[in-house]
């Protein structure tokens, strides 16, 4: 378990570095942030690998038992996509057409889906009701397959993640910190040639989401949330990992990946902004 603590610590540090890089003089250093994101990804894989390897089969049954006990706020901290980002192995090309469809499906089925994944994102749905976020969702659908195909893994991972992280999340209710971070991010730090429009959308989204926030500190559960979101970016990095079966997650992963899309946007646009 030590390595998990260590991995988590490294993840927090990495996110702190990325956050701080936005206010550094001279603009964002692309090289450094790329390296930090690599560390973040490695640490996250270690952190979540334990959940996936042992808990895959158990999670399904456990999820139904435990899930309903977890508060909404906790659930939404650990969207099912938590470990999905790890699983992006070889690519993603087979799925390009599915992603936009999944997202549309999600938006249509907002009220219909009954699985716990949707519960996990109940607060996200609140956000999504905001029209500005629709534009953010559009951005996500525009992002190429590589970034979208990540959330294809078993939701059991996230369930396990939630379960294990519950102690940390107890008593806290807050929105995903990502919008907070995004809104604090100095727009001035961007270097992207083409990232202007996504940035604007993100800013609108984040400022609206911010209203819903209660806690603003980067605590551990925030970190986990950020990790899942952030990990979905730099999908090219993830695609180089060893191939793990994606098929097992496909059907249950449909909803997950849609949620992932919602989580994806502010950070993906942040990366794109490089």
């Amino acid at each position, binding site marked *: 378990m030590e390595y998990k603590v*260590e*991995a988590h610590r*490294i993840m927090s*540090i990495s996110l702190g*570095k990325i956050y701080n890089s936005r206010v550094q*003089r*001279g*603009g964002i*250093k*692309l*090289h*450094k942030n*790329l*390296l930090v994101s*690599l*560390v973040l990804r*490695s*640490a996250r894989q*270690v952190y979540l690998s334990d959940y996936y390897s042992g808990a895959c089969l158990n999670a399904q049954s456990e999820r139904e038992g435990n899930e309903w006990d977890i508060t909404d706020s906790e659930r939404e901290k650990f969207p099912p996509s938590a470990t999905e980002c790890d699983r992006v192995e070889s690519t993603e090309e087979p799925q390009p057409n599915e992603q936009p469809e999944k997202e549309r499906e999600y938006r249509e089925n907002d009220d219909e889906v009954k699985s716990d994944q949707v519960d996990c994102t109940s607060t996200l749905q609140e956000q999504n009701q905001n029209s500005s976020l629709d534009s953010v969702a559009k951005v996500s659908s525009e*992002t*190429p397959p*590589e*970034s979208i195909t990540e959330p294809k893994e078993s939701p059991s991972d996230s369930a396990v993640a939630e379960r294990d992280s519950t102690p940390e999340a107890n008593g806290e209710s807050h929105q995903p910190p990502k919008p907070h971070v995004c809104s604090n991010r*100095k*727009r*001035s*730090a*961007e*270097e*992207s*040639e083409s*990232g202007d429009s996504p940035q604007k959308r993100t800013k609108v989204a984040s400022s609206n989401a911010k209203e819903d926030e209660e806690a603003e500190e980067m605590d551990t559960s925030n970190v986990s949330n950020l990790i899942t979101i952030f990990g979905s*970016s*730099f*999908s*090219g*990095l993830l695609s*180089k990992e060893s191939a793990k079966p994606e098929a097992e997650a496909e059907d249950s992963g449909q909803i997950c990946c849609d949620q992932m899309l919602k989580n994806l946007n502010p950070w*993906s646009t942040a*990366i*794109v*902004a*490089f």
Partner: protein
Amino acid sequence: MMAGVGGGNDFQWCFSQVKGAIDEDVAEADIISTVEFNYSGELLATGDKGGRVVIFQREQESKNRLLSRGEYNVYSTFQSHEPEFDYLKSLEIEEKINKIRWLPQQNAAHFLLSANDKTIKLWKISERDKRAEGYNLKDEDGRLQDQFRITTLRVPVLMPMDLMVEASPRRIFANAHTYHINSISVNSDYETYLSADDLRINLWHLEITDRSFNIVDIKPANMEELTEVITAAECHPHQCNVFVYSSSKGTIRLCDMRAAALCDRHSKFFEEPEDPSSRSFFSEIISSISDVKFSHSGRYMMTRDYLSVKVWDLNMENRPVETYQVHEYLRSKLCSLYENDCIFDKFECCWNGSDSAIMTGSYNNFFRMFDRNTRRDITLEASRENSKPRAILKPRKVCTGGKRKKDEISVDSLDFNKKILHTAWHPKENVIAVAATNNLYIFQDKMN
């Protein structure tokens, strides 16, 4: 006696000079960010975070001091770059000089290229030691004289004056880099040079500032797919069509400009297979190459990553021919070094004139030299305590565990704020310049 690195068994390094403030409080603007000898070694240029360039010139050898050669004294100081603000992107552009590269001398003036994150400037440094006096139309103050007052005609005479060294910007190469410039390299044709940022490499003509050729572009269509960046680039010393660039993944690509206009496809690809046993969270960071330098012969190149220096034979792509560990004792400290950002430090490396030795910096103001022939290595320290004239530098040793011997330093006592990132070796002699934060140390060999 740990001697022999740099040439011969009797070889020893001695302190020669130190430039810079002694004050403990280091002003950030004074931190030296690049050091470079010119082609003859007569001039030594430094750039700092404040955007200034200071050029030192070597004195002619004095008969009085037989044991040391001429000293380097300030020749010219000028403000090369100023902080700028990109209003379109709302970001500040640092004035820090990232690289200085000299041009070969072709006339009495000296030329160098200096680059910050976004702009490269060609500076002309020229001397003026004569002044024309005795103008007909101007008086001594330069004021125009009343023409009716002039009754005689005389020829102005050149009179000696106090030496004045002028630096003037002759070319400004701007607006060609979206990302931060990390390298510039003058081509062996002496007409072109390349500049590299994180994702692109541009080829310039020294006379033309309004356009450049993009010769490498690794920017992915979707930035989310970004996996590596360019970390350094250099032109081959003799073949003007060849250049190399290193990446954050620890690979080096050699490109031939004759093959295509856009050299996205490399001609050679240098990569050493990773040792799976040493994998950690930080494996990728420490494999990122921070510097690449061709040997003077052009047959080899040297790369610096966080823990080691590797020498590659251009004819062998699958592994380096030599690997030198700079500070392997840091491998177990990578997590702390990640926390304090030291793991991102970009160390440079350099060859000596004969390519028989290489040098690179470390922490605690230590720097390391490796003799390629004898395989001996030495660790020296740049500190004011060893700064008596011609004092011989004592080799240093880091204790990695167990009992610490006398004169050894334990890893935990190392000062990671004192880092030597920039070093330079005189092209012909055993004279080295070592930048330690805001101080520039010059060391020479004891012989001669």
